[in-house]
């Protein structure tokens, strides 16, 4: 019944716009799995992508309530169409032959690469779909010292866009 949705929106690049979106989720007890926001090429707009979970009814309400916010210019549910989603993960592991082997095994068909090596620690940079990354992190398990995820972003494929 409950499903994950990636909702992406163009926001007026005003102070307070982000807190309106975040506040809406907490005030109405909606879920936030991840939230990411940054300016677009048009400096008057920022693009915010939120991953949320809910029944069809709840997701419908979330979209309507977001749309109702005056700072939200336009909104798209990426889960409704054929879209491309990506998340970036940086993770730190202790350097050892075993971990390096694991990474090169796992990384063969992914975008994982060792980006930094300092004082016996590696920073691995990997991007992919959220679920794939979840699995990837599970396999590394206890080897991980620290991890940071960017939150999901996405674009719909083909002609469909979120632009003005």
């Amino acid at each position, binding site marked *: 019944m409950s499903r994950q949705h990636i909702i992406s929106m163009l926001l*007026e690049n005003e102070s*307070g716009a982000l*807190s*309106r979106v975040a*506040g809406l989720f907490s005030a109405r007890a909606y879920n936030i799995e991840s939230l990411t926001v940054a300016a677009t090429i048009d400096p008057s707009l920022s693009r915010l992508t939120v991953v949320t979970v809910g029944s069809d009814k709840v997701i419908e309400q979330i979209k*309507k309530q977001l749309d109702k916010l*005056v700072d939200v210019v336009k909104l798209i549910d990426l889960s409704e169409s054929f879209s491309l989603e990506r998340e970036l993960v940086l993770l730190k592991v202790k350097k050892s032959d075993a971990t390096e082997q694991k990474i090169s095994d796992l990384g063969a068909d992914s975008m994982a690469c060792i980006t930094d090596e300092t004082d016996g620690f590696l920073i691995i940079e990997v991007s992919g779909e959220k679920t794939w990354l979840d699995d990837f992190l599970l396999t590394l398990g206890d080897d991980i010292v620290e991890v940071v995820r960017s939150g999901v972003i996405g674009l719909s494929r083909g002609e469909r866009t979120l632009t003005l």
Partner: protein
Amino acid sequence: MELSGGEIVIQSLKDEGVEYVFGYPGGCVLHIYDAIFRQEDVKHVLVRHEQGATHAADGYARASGKPGVVLVTSGPGATNAVTGIATAYMDSIPMVVITGQVPKAVIGSDAFQEVDTIGITRPCVKHNFLVKNVGDIAETMKKAFYLATSGRPGPVIVDIPKDITDPNIKVPYEYPAEISMRSYTPPVSGDIGQIIEAVKLIKEAKRPVIYSGGGVVLGEGSAELRELCRALNFPVTQTLMGLGAFPGTDPQFIGMLGMHGTYEANMAMHNSDLIIAIGARFDDRVTGKVDEFCPHAKIIHIDVDPASIAKIIEVDVAIVGQVKPILLDMLAQIKHLDETFDRARIADWWLQIDQWRATDCMAYDTTTGTIKPQYVIEQLYKVTGGEAYLTSDVGQHQMFAAQFYPFDEPRRWINSGGLGTMGFGLPAAMGVKFAHPDADVACVTGEGSIQMCLQELSTMLQYDTPVKVINLNNGYLGMVRQWQEFSYDSRYSHSYLEALPDFKKLAEAYGHVGMTIKKKEDVEPALREAFAMKNRTVFLDFLTDTKENVYPMIAAGKAHHDMMMGPSSKYKRNEP
């Protein structure tokens, strides 16, 4: 024209056609107050508490249809206003609230009288603005009025740091004639395809009910609603917020619905096969138990706010847009049909409703000598000829007023339905009086509620806004006591008000007329005497039955057909 920021605020109000500002001064708005001093078009009303300012502006807006305007200082001025802002928000009342803010340079430094007004009010406003440049004030004011009054109306805040109102910094002023915002496009007319679908359902209905709400009042759709109801001859129920849009004395009106609605209205909802919801939002006090709401009905929902659709209840046909054009389009479609929607078409349904009606569900004991609160409202209706503007506070007295004073016109019944704010009634009544100086205005209240914004009696003397205060003094926080009687075995935990003031003397101390009414036979004469004093505020303290309850009642979480009936009703358990 070159103006300072403070002058721009006031000039914008002037250009917006604002007549009254309800406010209270303080450090961060002193430049603005100086601009007020140097002009005469925009009149300022000095309240005694910022909550009073917001409720007064709100009452003004509800009675006039024009936006209410409030001006308060930063910090405590803004926080005191929050209750009134939330009250307006919950009932979708157009309001523009100007709040002073500390100078830009010290924002975020915990400066004297600094609060994050934008943050505090964010969840209870339609939108809010922090203005950063003096050159942006005029356009922001325009946006604020546009947002407050269009689409689903609501309060909008304009937070203005003191430095940008500096009298020494002048900028060219021009008030925008029009404004559009790319991120905001309120809907206009409804989708005609959906309207046709709705009319199909209307054609098939055997047990229809029109369920009309506050949106019809706010959207000025009362005339169209009446026309639709008369064209269809369907039974009409209204929410607490919708009363008056359709005449309360019309036999087609089956009473208010919901928690303290009539038996016939709630039973009709429960047994209906078609609900036509117009400008109503399926509030929990209306629906009762959601899972059992109108189990047999198809539902048509007309609303200006897309987010209201399917928020609580799934609907069969949704029509988003302004109520007025939608009802007109719907009427045109109905006239297109070659059908007669006379009463005979749904004769069985009306017969059933009349049987429910015969239970006389609001009947109360008229034989005792004590003053029953219902009796006072009935007499109030009689004495004012049903023509008064009634504001109310929150509690049993509010329900008695809604039940026993049928409103034949919209905007006459003014109460805090969504937030249920005690303290609303008195300042709201003052606001109504500013909107309609010649009308009879009464505030129906209780000894609990009235003490929450009592200080405005002083403002009412200063500005000569004569109101009749109908205090249904039962000595209890009556609505709380009623719930404790029903759900807590009559353990009246802190619902008894000891050490009440002598309200008569209190009114006199404020320079008004006070009356204490202890006997039933004095009720009507006292009301006549009070309303004869056209130019005086009269505080009528009615010492009523202390233990009267509001009936009928749907207990929280129960369904429409599961009502508690009063001992005086003719309801028998084995009835349908």
